[in-house]
């Protein structure tokens, strides 16, 4: 594999970094990343993955752009309202970097299609907005043996954690065997979120993926907590390693069973309550 001549000036500013170089650029060029969710987290993550020259990027999202997204989902714009988010994001990325392969996948990720949709990619970014999909993504990443860079943001707060990384990295179930109570969980729709908070976390997700691909990640299990109004705003938490008793990634591999047969929505307490329907 080679770097084409016109890519030297394009990527020069990062290729001169220690530990990067031509080798690093070729690693990015030959890597593939799936971004699940082209919303508040996915947009900034996708931007920096594309700008850095990740050779193949899959965008998985079945939603369409709404005007209420524009406050934070910065790859979409007023002219894209009504368009599929995956398509809108793909167009924005092609404008930034026309040489990349961008797969716009306008399907919902489900237990039936997750393994198939994600297997072509080396690294997976969880930029979704609900608990069932987060457990589904974790189980799928474990099944496929791929790292999962997971971001989340709500109100003024954000969390970032890379799951299933290397030999000791825990999965989402190692940390959170049970989903949080539905009553304490809101979607961004219900509780709101500041755009710059999703921006910081999504951006950090792209950075984590790039570090993993370049071999610059220290692979120590850690969780980054962000609080936009906190002082200090960031805290890094040292996490447990993979748990041998974990039903997903533990020694009795895949005790959770076949992904296709798991009812993730039920596991997470049933469908999200329809607050608007209830007049709230």
């Amino acid at each position: 594999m080679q770097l084409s001549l016109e890519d030297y000036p394009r990527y020069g500013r990062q290729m001169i970094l220690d530990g990067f170089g031509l080798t690093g650029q070729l690693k990015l060029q030959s890597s593939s990343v799936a971004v699940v969710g082209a919303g508040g987290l996915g947009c900034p993550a996708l931007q920096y993955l594309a700008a850095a020259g990740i050779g193949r990027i899959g965008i998985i999202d079945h939603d369409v752009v709404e005007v209420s997204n524009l406050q934070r989902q910065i790859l979409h714009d007023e002219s894209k309202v009504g368009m599929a988010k995956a398509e809108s994001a793909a167009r924005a990325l092609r404008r930034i970097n026309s040489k990349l392969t961008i797969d716009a996948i306008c399907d919902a990720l489900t237990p039936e299609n997750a393994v198939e949709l994600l297997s072509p990619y080396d690294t997976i970014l969880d930029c979704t907005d609900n608990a069932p999909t987060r457990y589904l993504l974790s189980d799928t990443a474990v099944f496929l043996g791929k790292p999962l860079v997971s971001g989340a943001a709500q109100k003024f707060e954000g969390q970032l954690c890379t799951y299933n990384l290397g030999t000791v990295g825990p999965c989402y179930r190692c940390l959170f065997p049970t989903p949080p109570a539905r009553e304490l969980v809101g979607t961004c729709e219900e509780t709101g979120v500041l755009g710059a908070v999703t921006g910081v976390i999504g951006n950090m997700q792209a950075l984590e993926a790039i570090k993993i691909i370049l071999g610059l990640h220290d692979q120590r299990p850690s969780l980054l907590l962000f609080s936009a109004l906190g002082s200090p705003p960031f805290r890094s938490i040292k996490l447990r390693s993979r748990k041998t008793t974990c039903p997903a990634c533990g020694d009795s591999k895949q005790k959770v069973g076949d992904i296709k047969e798991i009812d993730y929505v039920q596991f997470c307490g049933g469908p999200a309550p329809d607050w608007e329907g209830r007049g709230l």
Partner: protein
Amino acid sequence: MSTGDTITLKVEFSGGLELLFSNQRSHKLSVPALVPKKYGDASSETKPADITFLIHYLRDNLLKERVELFMESDTVRPGILVLVNDTDWELEGEGDYSLKAGDEIVFISTLHGG
């Protein structure tokens, strides 16, 4: 800090858990340095206050509603992650970790938004 028989701690809730605690994220509190081995049973032997004690103490003193969203069979609900001075409590002995003056204990729930 410790004043002989009490220990002063910083306790934080985040990721939505603060909703159970008057919507207040950060709390300063003092707990006894020695507590009964069996929670609430003054006649039982004593032990240094640990996180298992703290969880019960928070339930009885700070929690405003819905105990089942915070505790389950004498420990935190499994969807809650406990941090001791920025380290996962699993690396610190979990409930058996003995509290020290100035410790910062954080209870978080995962966020799901994006």
